[in-house]
């Protein structure tokens, strides 16, 4: 295991300690086992709180997106493990100013159960809350079973758009509505070239041949659509785009944002090579790209591979996407 770490048991604790020490203006560590990260000035009076959570190992997701115009709190589990219900409940308490809390997270079984349980726990304390699940990975279930799909790059758009809406002091119903709208607007697909290693496991999560790739693989190494010889960048991008467009057709004149996201080891250079092709295809179709995101937004530690997300915009979503936000990993526009 080629990782820079101390005891694998302390991986998450030390990571969070470093994160909060580096950026105290964005992240405050509280809650059971210190697994709740909250905006230092939360809860913000009159503002709907947005809470997320999930496993560690995906920075900037989840914790990293706690910030202005983004999330108010996140509950963070071990690497690739859900946070516990009481951690999530504490994140919700921290985020609640009385205006209610949106639970906004990815559709993974363990997370759903714990977020539901947490919701029930704080409900008894009088905290009103709603849920929006991001389930954007088209490779994880067919269209008929959309509700079984897992969440991936779409989380980034949902965080940004819901965060901007809450920033404007919309009420819980409105924030929930746009969060759901953003989640519904996104489709994603991933591909991987090499696995990553969960520190506590000590060995790679899967094996794959020296000349192989897997199309449609999930961010924890969940099996995808096919595994075979590594293809050329343009072929890969073309297929990813095709899989997304088959699921959510786009037409001339549509405006979309595109997220070309590295799973960790894949360098920016390769993301730009891929983006180049994706843009050329969308150009041909008469589809306009707005605010493309090309970097590491949702990773699996040192996994090699990338995900592509397309978010279909309308005026409302575009406006919210372009609104200011500020966290250690992502800044849009300016707060003044």
């Amino acid at each position, binding site marked *: 295991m080629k990782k820079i770490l101390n005891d694998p048991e302390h991986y998450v604790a030390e990571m969070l300690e470093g994160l909060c020490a580096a950026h105290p203006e964005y992240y405050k560590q509280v809650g059971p086992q210190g697994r709740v990260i909250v905006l230092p000035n939360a809860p913000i009076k009159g503002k709907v709180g947005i809470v997320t959570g999930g496993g560690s190992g995906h920075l900037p997701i989840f914790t990293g997106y706690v910030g202005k115009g983004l999330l108010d709190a996140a509950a963070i589990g071990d690497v690739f493990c*859900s946070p*516990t219900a009481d951690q999530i409940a504490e994140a919700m308490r921290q985020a609640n100013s009385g205006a209610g809390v949106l639970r906004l997270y990815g559709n993974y*079984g363990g997370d759903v159960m714990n977020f539901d349980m947490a919701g029930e726990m704080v409900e008894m304390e009088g905290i009103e809350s709603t849920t929006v699940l991001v389930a954007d990975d088209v490779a994880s279930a067919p269209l008929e079973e959309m509700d079984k799909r897992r969440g991936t790059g779409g989380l980034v758009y949902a965080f940004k758009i819901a965060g901007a809406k809450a920033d404007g002091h919309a009420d819980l119903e409105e924030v929930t509505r746009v969060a759901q709208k953003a989640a519904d607007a996104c489709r994603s697909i991933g591909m991987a070239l090499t696995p990553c290693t*969960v520190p506590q496991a000590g060995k790679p999560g899967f094996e794959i041949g020296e000349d192989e790739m897997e199309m449609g693989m999930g961010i924890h190494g969940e099996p995808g659509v096919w595994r075979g010889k590594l293809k050329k960048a343009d072929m890969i991008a073309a297929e990813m785009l095709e899989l997304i467009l088959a699921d959510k057709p786009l037409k001339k004149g549509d405006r979309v944002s595109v997220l070309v996201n590295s799973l960790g080891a894949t360098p920016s250079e390769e993301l730009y090579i891929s983006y180049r092709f994706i843009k050329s295809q969308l150009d041909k179709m008469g589809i306009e790209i707005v605010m493309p995101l090309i970097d590491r937004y949702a990773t699996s530690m040192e996994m090699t591979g990338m995900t592509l997300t397309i978010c279909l915009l309308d005026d409302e979503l575009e406006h919210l996407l372009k609104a200011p936000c500020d966290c250690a990993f992502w800044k849009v526009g300016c707060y003044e």
Partner: protein
Amino acid sequence: MSIFSKLLVIVHSGKSDAMSSGFTTEKLIQTINIMAAKMVKSSEELNQLDNLIGDGDIGITMKNGFRAMQEKTAQFPEDVGSAFMMCAQAFTSSRASSFATLFATGLMAAAKETKGMTEVPYNQIPKLLDAAIEKMALRGKSNLGDKTVLDEMAAIRGAIREAESDQSLIETVDNAAEKALHDFKNRPCRQGRARIFGDRTIGIDDPGMVVIRLLVQSLRDAEK
């Protein structure tokens, strides 16, 4: 006669006995200890199984979860409901995973049913099991037949109902547990991480079902 056997005997016969008229916190602790030993021993095997169609952690979950419960037993109150609640809390807070959450959900259901009781009549045990299965299904948004922990628990519940005699109860339950595993082996998992593997889960035991099967086995072995 072991606690478990006695428990099952009495559950089945529907009559309480003078010496041990019900399930107490003390008996809960004994049960936990028996099961904990089995989970520690089986941890690696369970991880390997979960690794085939999941993330390979269910063995850690069970080992840590039972250890967390054991650490709390010294503080267990006489109130069985509160003791069950402490079990649930210990189990979830040790490590979040689908199984931990489901298991804790089941324990919470039992807690609710037994709140305020220092002795739970054995014939109420099936009710606890029913409550647990119901709440766990709600929590997991899953149905019987999805090849999950629920199917294994339902099989046990069924065996208790149908056992022909008090003496054969533990054997019947144990056989039912084994049979359920076998019956589901060649079906696909329809919940949890395993679902995504689809037909590749055919021929592989569901890790959650195996956990329950092992827990039953630990009680049967303790009786021998």
